[in-house]
């Protein structure tokens, strides 16, 4: 199911516009609010302020404070309210302000949102998309740089998306909100301000489709969110040394595109998975295991993991030493090539 970046959406009618990811997500929310009067956007500071990252900027003005509204400061109630709204026929798009503040809402997310369709045998679906500014890299205060994807991916009943650039954020958000299943939409904060010409494309590939953002022959780098950009940097450096790296943007962290992973690694015979979350029991283990299960005979080396360390997310000057650096990824590439 893997596709090349050029085919990530269609129709490619519209001309590219220069947008940051934060603006592209804002555009997607506008489209969604306009196309479906049942769609609601709410959370802490998303209304009047337009969100701490301005992702919801202008939405309240455009769609009114019935459709876009601020809530009191309580994450569990925000997600609990989303459940009740969904049961009353709405399509909630709540935001939790930062990754680390999803924890107070985990009970509602895991025990309620993820299970209500199952519990009611399909009578009460949960077409909820939780927008969660995620991951690190912006030297923010504590709890503002966390990577919760392993937890969400492990939770039956949730789907999980994590875009890596502005265009794909637009397309994936359309797809997530229109889905009748609950989706955790993890927005890489570190890429919010990255401006580039993007095409605003409708989703055309199924939920769970990864994409090759750089084809290559010698090894596959697998990543999501901001680490895709890092892997592209690595690939460029490696190319200078004649090492031709493929970069696979997973996009969907649940369901995972096992077939897409296998197709790439079957060709390259080597894989490095890169993520910001701590190593142990991170999603990299799942990716490595899937790749190994499907490409056991093809693999020339064990899948390498380059991840955050098993330590709490650190403050400012230590952050760049915690996150997978270009050097660490290059070392892993070298290890897999020399294995």
């Amino acid at each position, binding site marked *: 199911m893997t596709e090349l970046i050029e085919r990530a959406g269609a129709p490619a009618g519209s001309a590219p516009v220069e947008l940051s990811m934060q603006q592209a997500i804002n555009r997607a929310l506008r489209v969604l609010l306009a196309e479906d009067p049942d769609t609601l956007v709410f959370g802490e500071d998303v209304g009047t302020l337009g969100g701490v990252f301005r992702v919801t900027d202008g939405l309240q003005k455009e769609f009114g404070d019935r459709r876009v509204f601020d809530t009191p400061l309580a994450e569990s*109630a925000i*997600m609990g309210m989303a459940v009740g709204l969904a049961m009353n026929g*709405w399509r*909630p798009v709540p935001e939790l302000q930062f990754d680390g503040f999803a924890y107070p809402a985990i009970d509602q997310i895991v025990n309620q949102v993820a299970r209500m369709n199952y*519990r*009611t*045998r*399909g009578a009460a679906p949960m077409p909820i998309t939780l927008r969660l500014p995620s991951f690190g890299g912006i030297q923010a205060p504590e709890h503002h740089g966390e990577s919760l994807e392993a937890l969400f991916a492990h939770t039956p009943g949730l789907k999980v998306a994590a875009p890596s650039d502005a265009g794909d954020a637009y397309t994936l958000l359309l797809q997530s909100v229109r*889905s009748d299943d609950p989706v955790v939409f993890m927005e890489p904060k570190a890429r919010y301000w990255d401006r580039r010409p993007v095409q605003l494309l409708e989703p055309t590939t199924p939920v769970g489709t990864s994409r090759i953002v750089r084809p290559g022959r010698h090894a596959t780098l697998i990543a999501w969110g901001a680490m895709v950009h890092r892997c592209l940097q690595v690939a460029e450096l490696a190319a200078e040394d004649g090492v031709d790296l493929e970069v696979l943007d997973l996009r969907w962290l649940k*369901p995972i595109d096992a077939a897409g992973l296998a197709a790439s690694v079957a060709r390259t015979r080597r894989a490095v998975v890169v993520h910001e979350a701590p190593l142990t029991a991170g999603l990299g283990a799942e990716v490595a295991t899937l790749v190994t299960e499907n490409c056991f005979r093809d693999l020339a080396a064990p899948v390498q993991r380059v991840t955050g360390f098993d330590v709490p997310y650190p403050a400012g000057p230590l952050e760049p030493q915690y996150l997978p650096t270009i050097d660490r990824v290059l070392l892993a590439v070298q290890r897999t090539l020399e294995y």
Partner: protein
Amino acid sequence: MPTHEPEGRGSITVDHLPPDLTRTLYRHMRTARDLDAEAIALQRQGVFPAYVSVRGQEAAQVASAAALDPERDFVFPTYREMAAALAYGVEMVGYMATHRALWHGGLYDVMASRFGAINAVVGGPVPHAVGWAVGERLRGDDGVALAYFGDGASSEGDVHEAMNFAGVMAAPVVFFCQNNQWALSVPNHRQIAGGSVSARAEGYGMPGVLVDGNDAGAVYQATAEAVARARRGGGPTLIEALTYRVEPHSTSDDPTRYRDEADAERWRRRDPLDLLRAALIEAGHADEDALAEVDAAARERAEAIRDGVATAPEPDGSELFTHVFRETTDELIRQRRVWQEEVEL
């Protein structure tokens, strides 16, 4: 601080209510009582792995549910609202199926019943009621959400967050606390700072009502007022119905380890069904003969539900995979094949 002694120890009155309503309350309470007894028997026979009794709480549940309109309101229950479900018109074989462990949330249609799935997370469904109610107001409709929860649940953060949201958003929701004085083994005085759940209401700017939970007429009245207020845009109300859990917490529990059964006995003597029965006769709403007929019909219905649930088919194992998503995934299809492979061994 309201006292926790049962008020109006002697008798109750239903003079303020129409006779057909009070007879209906009696019928539901009687049926719930019988069904409760059947359920305990089924558990003893090993048909149910466990059961949570509603005995003694029938007035609190039936009279509150009866104050709602099942055509436009919505109920968010916990795991102990059998009598409310019955009064609200939920399909009861499907409801009781949860106690046979056939399906966690119950097998009734939650959306058609307008009665949420049975929910085992103490406090968890309370914010759902607020969300539903907010959604109702956003659409300009006039339905009211009612959330049941226990005295123990009142300690959970979710209940506070929900009440605050409801207050700020003036949501049409009734927070209905059945204070049965026990949260498993923990009594009110080690659970509720300040001693009263309803006393919390004022801090949220909403009316708080403490009502005798064994007085069906009083519960009906208090709930009807709260529902009417919510319906006309007056916002949320917190009702605390003071009652008593005369049975163990569940069939797995042994209350002799933590409470004096004399206390329970005192409350058993103040049985809500007995009180209502006497009040019906006193008010001239029914005579002994009419009630005997209701009793017989209740028994029959309870037995029919019992038979229905005892013989209901077990869900097929494939249902493990059917309801996880609206749009399933390749991975789940693959896992279903793994499951199938083993079934076919």
